[in-house]
């Protein structure tokens, strides 16, 4: 996982598999930026994410809920089709904004 802050927006580049094993690590990595640096807008880049389950989706939902009262936003981009299928089943696309695919 790689992080970058640009114009007050935190960009997180997810890699590999996101499950119970590393969900807390991602949660803490994001929350520290929200709590310590006052970051309110987050973009998760998912092109290198190969697996997600409900533990991983829970981190996304939790960050969405955390940013909401702060007036912030969580957005995702470059979601691989297999990951999107799971996100769709969870209903997350109804509340989280999906940015159009970035061209490299």
């Amino acid at each position, binding site marked *: 996982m790689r992080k970058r802050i640009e114009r007050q927006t935190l960009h997180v580049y997810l890699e590999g598999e996101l*499950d119970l*094993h590393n969900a807390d690590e991602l949660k803490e990595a994001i929350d520290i930026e929200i709590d310590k640096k006052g970051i309110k807008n987050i973009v998760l880049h998912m092109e290198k994410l190969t697996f997600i*389950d*409900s533990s991983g989706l829970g981190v996304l939902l939790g960050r969405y809920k955390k940013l909401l009262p702060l007036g912030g936003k969580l957005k995702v981009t470059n979601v691989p089709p297999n990951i999107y299928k799971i996100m769709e089943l969870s209903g997350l696309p109804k509340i989280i904004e999906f940015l159009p695919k970035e061209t490299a």
Partner: protein
Amino acid sequence: MVFTFSSLPENVTISRMLLSAVGSQLNLPINELEELKVAVSEAVSNSIIHGYKNNPEAFVTLEVESSSKKITIQVIDTGCGIPDIKQAMQASYSTDPERMGLGFVFMQSFMDELKVESEVNQGTKVIMTKYLKNLEPSH
């Protein structure tokens, strides 16, 4: 195949890898393999988080049985059990606000059959079956 492991979060990843290996031996299509991986991930995570309340000193057993027609996966723990299985299997039933409460929904969606047996203070057994229709030769 029977595989018993400590109730540690990293073993969710490992149980998925094991299933991946079984699935590729069966020549499962990638999308079906992905579905099996999500289902097993949810079942093992449930045992660790809910069954054992994150106690790392317990054990989870994963049983995988496969034939040319179907693959059956059992995830067994000897944890706290589920008092009301029907309620637990409903969408968005979660005891933790950071979690989605979708574990059973995913298992149900991605497998053809799902059975949950549970006794309070005895443990929980999740039995999931997927039929391998795509393996039959096409005419």
